[in-house]
């Protein structure tokens, strides 16, 4: 197993599949009356969150606790070089406290990579700036595999603000590793220059893509982006790239609708779609716990 999970690129096909298979086993724990395994008893997992993210932090916390690890929530919100302690000093502090794993969420791309230089324990990237969010990609892959039965050859459309999305970056990498076919759908302003080097197709036309899609993943689009001229208005964005009822009906019958949350209802996704039977949004949250249990188990369980 790998030492850290910083990027979806750290996972080859065999390792990624092992994580998903392990997550399947972990999911059975959630169905028990006592939702707890003794696996990581005596190990310390630190949640180091520089950004507000109650859902991701809670998901990691539940995952670690179900494995009987001691969990410390180290909230460093608002901290940066301008005020408070540097990331390196925080890392050395956590190191001295004997953290076996540090789960980090940070607004700066690459923060998890830097942290991994300064601590001996395993670092799990829980989202770094606009770079990656590998456990989100794992839970998305897990959700697709459980709903569609496979990942190889599955056609996935990732729709929205790819430029600023760590979810998109991790998903493109992981899905390519697992054999899925990814199409990115976005206004040209919200695609990075250099996207042509990614293992994904690109389209500007959502309606053309939907009929040939097995899973459509809607990314959160911040309304404020229109202030930087990425698109003219929220209304025009929703009209061209939002998933409404009519577009949902253009999908094949078996296709699923995903969203990493939190949603902008009425912007990238219509309430009718978010609440439909095709939507896996709530299921993704539950799967997140199983996948994060699997990641922590495989990163820490192998060491004694």
């Amino acid at each position, binding site marked *: 197993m790998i030492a850290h999970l910083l990027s979806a690129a750290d996972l080859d096909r065999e390792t990624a599949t092992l994580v998903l298979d392990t997550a399947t086993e972990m999911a059975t724990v959630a169905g028990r009356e006592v939702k707890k395994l003794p696996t990581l008893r005596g190990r310390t997992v630190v949640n180091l969150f520089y950004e507000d993210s109650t859902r991701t932090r809670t998901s990691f916390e539940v995952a670690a606790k179900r494995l009987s690890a001691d969990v410390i929530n180290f909230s460093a919100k608002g901290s940066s*070089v301008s005020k408070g302690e*540097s*990331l390196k000093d925080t890392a050395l502090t956590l190191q001295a406290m004997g953290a076996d794993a540090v789960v980090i969420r940070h607004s700066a791309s690459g923060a998890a990579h830097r942290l991994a230089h300064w601590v001996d324990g395993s670092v799990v990237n829980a989202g770094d700036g606009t770079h990656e969010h590998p456990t989100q990609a794992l839970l998305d892959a897990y959700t697709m595999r459980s709903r569609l039965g496979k990942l190889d050859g599955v056609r996935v459309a990732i729709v929205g603000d790819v430029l600023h999305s760590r979810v998109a970056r991790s998903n493109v990498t992981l899905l390519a590793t697992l054999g899925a076919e990814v199409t990115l759908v976005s206004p040209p302003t919200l695609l990075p220059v250099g996207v042509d080097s990614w293992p994904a197709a690109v389209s500007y036309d959502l309606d053309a893509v939907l009929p040939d899609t097995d899973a459509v993943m809607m990314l959160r689009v911040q309304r404020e982006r229109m202030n930087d001229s990425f698109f003219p208005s929220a209304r025009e964005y929703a009209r061209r790239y939002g998933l409404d009822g009519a577009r949902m009906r253009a999908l094949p019958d078996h296709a699923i609708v995903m969203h990493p949350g939190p949603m902008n209802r009425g912007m990238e996704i219509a309430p009718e779609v978010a609440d439909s039977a095709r939507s896996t949004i709530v299921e993704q949250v539950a799967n997140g716990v199983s996948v994060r249990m699997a990641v922590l188990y495989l990163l820490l369980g192998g060491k004694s």
Partner: protein
Amino acid sequence: MTAYVVRGARVVGGEPTDLLIRDGVVEAVGPDADVAGATRVDADGLVALPGLVDLHTHLREPGREDAETVESGSRAAALGGYTAVCAMANTDPVADTAGVVEQVYRLGQAAGLVDVQPIGAVTVGLAGERMAELGAMADSAARVRIFSDDGHCVADPRMMRRALEYVKAFDGVVAQHAEEPRLTVGAQMHEGEWSARLGLTGWPAVAEEAIIARDALLAGHVGARLHICHVSTAGSVEILRWAKSKGFRVTAEVTPHHLLLTDELAAGYDPVFKVNPPLRTDEDVAALRAALAEGVIDVVATDHAPHTTEDKECEWPYARPGMLGLQTALPVVLDTMLEPGLLDWDTVAERMSRRPARIAGLTDHGHDPAPGAPANLTLVDPAARITVDPADLASPSRNTPYAGRTLPGRIVATFLRGEATVLDGKAQK
């Protein structure tokens, strides 16, 4: 003053000969170059070059003496083979008045390791809004001739036009940091394949090229001198080639790091590789090397930019851009240009000493060691290999991108007006 006899030096790569250095000048060259009581310097196998001249140095004093001082930067320069450096204006306070440029000038004189020629800011506080007192700086003891808001672009086209015109009165030159600021909001690295992958906001090549094109046209229109700082893209080279073909008075510099390093070094998110303009692609590096060989790019300038450890040992987006360069510039040029045969010793001397001295108006510098010439020269051992250790550098900062890298060329000795500032690779004060 000590007299020196340099034995067996290859002057600008020529046949070995002897040099007598006395009273601030090269008194004689050849077998008769000797005098009783002179200190002998064995230069067997060494190449004598005119003392190097850097058009682009950040000495950080006044304001950030924790990163560099005029004295420590001067020492780094002498150890790198330099006899003159042009100190950029983005200090704190900004070098936008006669008082500040004279202070920097006098600190340089006091250190006595290289000639420190201050550059004056184009606009007050580098804010781009009001023209600084350029004439007062030109008339000051510092005799400023280069003006630059480096670190910031003079983005307003009207301000740039006025500055270009105004400095004609005292044969000044505006050195432009070419970066259209509206295209580089939040930019962290070259915009391309690697920025897309790493999730770092891109700094597009066009932000540099658009300003170079605009300013070349402005310089042509008003008949003024324009110098372009740290050219980093293949497209910029094409625009410079065109501007020169039109007869516009445009010169340009390239940094050693843009001749050697590329954007994929950002992949580890180590901010020691963060610099502005950013490291570019292999294609850009090849174009810059070819342009320097051809002369479309006139000079190598270091953009030596010391930063404290706390400003670099952090998350990439929070780190300050910039790299140390004075002590590694000549080795990088030997590695990227001389050894591959793109430059010979004569053109190395041209790009790193003679031409920058002429652009800066430093009449005592940029002269090959010959009888009667000011004794500003350096001796380099081209056969030696150095391995860069940040702890060995003269700067209090440690932000070299070459740590652990082996490069050709060791600077053995440097003379400033006949006085040894470096002997046996060691600073003499």
